[in-house]
């Protein structure tokens, strides 16, 4: 009798939080695994133009990025706009082999969906972009996307000049 009474008089045990770290660790590992730290370090200044009619690029693994803009380090690379392929600055002549190599990495069934995303700075002249387009045509990479940021309103696009 006395034993039972003693138990009843005890305080209600606190909710065990022992499994909380496990839950949090699970979430943590999920984010650690899904986070892709593969972003390239940008060697060029990049301010993307704005637009309203863009489409989402849904498959990141089928997309290759080409960056264009003035180098961030003008003492080393000059001030003329350059092309960045992965982590280094390249020349127009390097584009074909770069794109072909990137396409080889994709399995054959999905190669027609291969897309090149051009991330160019607003101040780049079309001459350089046209050269790039010609090279992409020669490399048979015909699906391209001009990467843009969303504009808040269509009117915003007319204001700037």
């Amino acid at each position: 009798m006395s034993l039972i009474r003693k138990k009843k008089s005890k305080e209600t045990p606190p909710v065990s939080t022992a499994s909380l770290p496990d839950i949090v660790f699970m979430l943590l590992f999920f984010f650690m695994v899904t986070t892709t730290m593969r972003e390239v370090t940008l060697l060029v200044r990049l301010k993307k133009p704005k637009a309203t009619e863009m489409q989402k690029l849904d498959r990141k693994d089928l997309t290759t990025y080409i960056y264009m803009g003035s180098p961030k380090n003008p003492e080393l690379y000059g001030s003329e706009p350059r092309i960045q392929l992965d982590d280094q600055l390249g020349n127009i002549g390097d584009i074909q082999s770069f794109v072909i190599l990137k396409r080889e990495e994709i399995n054959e069934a999905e190669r027609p969906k291969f897309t090149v995303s051009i991330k160019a700075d607003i101040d780049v002249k079309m001459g350089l972009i046209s050269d790039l387009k010609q090279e992409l045509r020669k490399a048979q990479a015909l699906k391209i996307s001009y990467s843009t940021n969303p504009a808040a309103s269509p009117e915003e696009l007319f204001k700037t000049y």
Partner: protein
Amino acid sequence: MGRRKRSTPEINAGSMADIAFLLLIFFLVTTTMDVDKGLMVKLAPWTDEPPPEDNLKKEKNIFVVLINSNDQLLVEDDYFSIDQLRLAAKDFINNNGDGTCSECNGLRNPASSDNPQKAVISLQNDRGTSYQMFVKVRNEILGAYSELRNDLSERKYGRSFPTLNDEDRSVIVGVYPQFISEAEPVSVGK
């Protein structure tokens, strides 16, 4: 014995959750879930020989947009500002001069395009044109097409174009196919 066992202190795991939360928040903040968006374009395959002159296509079926190195627009031999371009392009695509497009509600101007299947927008820029201007013009032309498709979709199905299913969508695209040609740039001076 039993008493001594109970009295062994547990390792305090209470702060474990805090540490894990800290890490979790760090990863949550640094994870960039940025979705890349852009104007999708299909390039023409490369040919070594110069492109054939478009003699077959009547001049009235081509809507010529020129951008010079000072980012000024010349559309069908008229000076244009960028905010006029979308409407002009819409009128051109939707014109339906020969009346073959039963779904179009265009002006039926005999001097403009025959029907949306034949209407081609030709975009030509200078090597000195800025990328920003090019994207703006490109955006307006794509905007003209998407507005026309949306209007037709509202008339026909009572829903906006992006909400349609694939079958209905291809019907609309069949009425208003996109023909945009990006010509190789000329170099008139920087």
